[in-house]
């Protein structure tokens, strides 16, 4: 195993242990169960966003794009809003968690392949057009969701609102096993495709010359991105810049284009940042703010730094 991976894994392990055991009182059984489920949620979310971002950046050949910037999670929020609007509050609450999530993931995957596949299918030669289209699609999804939210009744709106703001403290216990299962399957698939992802990162002409089925691979990667984004958005809501920080860190730490190293590194870093961030919030800052706010703030600064350094590749 690579030494850098081992170090990140150790950091994650230490953070997780601290999170679970810090100040645990006499009522340790109950507290431990509560913390374990929250920890599992954070690990799933962190790893999902990290792997989704690396996959998306590889397919789009661009280091400053993330699925969130391109409107993936806005699409998920739109889907949720449409469901609440269509079924009403009771109908929405009545839906079985697992089946609902599975159906949402399937719809997301198809929609993402249709929208972004078309955009990327021709080898994304026109990066500027692709970014603009993605950003506009994101705004379109957000506006549609906003429109639906405006015309629905206030009770339903309250539900939609909790769905569309990022929060790391409302991880749904019933959804967690389903989301974790989907995330693990998608990540295993991504790891299996490592060597193909290395080739796709070379760009279309070289990849085709090397015999890669470029279009099929693009669609497969986008479907995995859709599944992973659905998982993270369903659990904590949209976090736009988190993936960017993680992929930036993973790239600079690993300093290699090999996905066999990049993907696990990113997944571990994603988990570690969330757990450490949450620790700091709960223990140091006394829950005075929201983790997502700080993640977005530092992420936004990082994004600007990338832009200013001209690392748009």
């Amino acid at each position: 195993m690579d030494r850098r991976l081992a170090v990140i894994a150790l950091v994650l392990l230490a953070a997780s242990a601290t999170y679970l055991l810090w100040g645990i009182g006499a009522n340790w059984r109950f507290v431990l169960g509560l913390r374990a489920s929250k920890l599992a949620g954070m690990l799933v979310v962190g790893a999902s966003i990290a792997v989704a971002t690396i996959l998306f950046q590889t397919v789009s050949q661009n280091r400053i794009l993330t699925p969130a910037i391109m409107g993936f999670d806005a699409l998920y929020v739109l889907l949720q809003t449409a469901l609440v609007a269509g079924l009403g509050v009771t109908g929405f609450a009545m839906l079985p968690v697992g089946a609902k999530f599975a159906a949402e993931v399937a719809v997301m995957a198809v929609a993402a392949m249709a929208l972004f596949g078309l955009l990327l299918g021709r080898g994304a030669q026109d990066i500027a057009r692709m970014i603009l289209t993605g950003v506009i699609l994101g705004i379109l999804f957000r506006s549609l969701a906003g429109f639906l939210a405006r015309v629905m009744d206030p009770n339903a709106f309250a539900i939609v609102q909790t769905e569309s703001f990022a929060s790391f403290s409302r991880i749904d216990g019933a959804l967690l096993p389903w989301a974790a299962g989907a995330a693990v399957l998608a990540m295993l698939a991504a790891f299996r495709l490592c060597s193909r992802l290395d080739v796709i990162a070379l760009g279309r002409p070289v990849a085709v010359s090397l015999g890669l089925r470029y279009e099929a691979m693009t669609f497969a990667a986008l479907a995995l991105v859709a599944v992973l984004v659905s998982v993270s958005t369903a659990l904590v809501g949209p976090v736009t810049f988190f993936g960017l920080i993680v992929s930036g860190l993973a790239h600079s730490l690993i300093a290699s284009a090999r996905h066999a190293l990049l993907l696990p590194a990113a997944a571990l870093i994603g988990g570690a940042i969330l757990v450490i961030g949450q620790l700091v919030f709960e223990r140091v800052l006394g829950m005075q703010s929201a983790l997502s706010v700080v993640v977005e703030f530092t992420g936004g600064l990082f994004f600007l730094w990338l832009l200013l350094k001209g690392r748009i590749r």
Partner: protein
Amino acid sequence: MIRIENVSHHIGPAPILHGIDLTLPPNSVTALIGPNGAGKSTLLNLIGRLIPLQEGRISVDGNDVTATPSRQLAKVMAILGQTNHAGSRLRVRELVAFGRWPHHLGRARPEDQAAVEAALAQFDLAGLAERFLDEVSGGQRQRAFLAMCIAQDTDWLLLDEPLNNLDMAHARALMARLHGLRNAGRGIVVVVHEVNYAAAWADHVVALEGGRVVAQGTPHQVLTPEVLGQLYDMEIRVTELDGRPLILHHV
């Protein structure tokens, strides 16, 4: 043998190629020449399945380029485009190693590593192997991409202006190497702008103009003042040196 039957191509409303019928012989160096916009690169990219075939048929050693799985074609031909950049930040050795990918699909064997080292040595890249591609010069990067194609170890090599960015010494060395591969039984198709390289090294020359084949044959048959004059619309003197045409297009 590469068979091109009745191939036409448009980009938007603009016609690029008009009903090209061509057979490229195996075991030889074929040079595609012609003025800018003649359709040389388009033809090469169509053979190399980098752009989808719109009309007609192309087969490489009997493998139809639209019907044959891409991975199988990658063991038959390697194509290098005109502008090359790797999407990811790679070291020279890592790039060259990708040439072996069609053979091992991610699990490099000792013979693959040996082939990579051989390709690096052939292209004078052994000393640069650990440098990143964005830290070497344009010509060095071009050589790295060429080494990757050679490492792919295919019966056919399709190279679009491989002499781009190369200095005199490396340009001649490349042509000599291609000639050596041809002697070893490979077929090589190159797009060249400097017709003297075609004159000195090619066995077969195909002249394209306005998307049509206007002449083909041995260098002596094609590289004449008449054909070249018509092709490039200028007066050109052609003499002979060591039994090969020498084109004095620069004076």
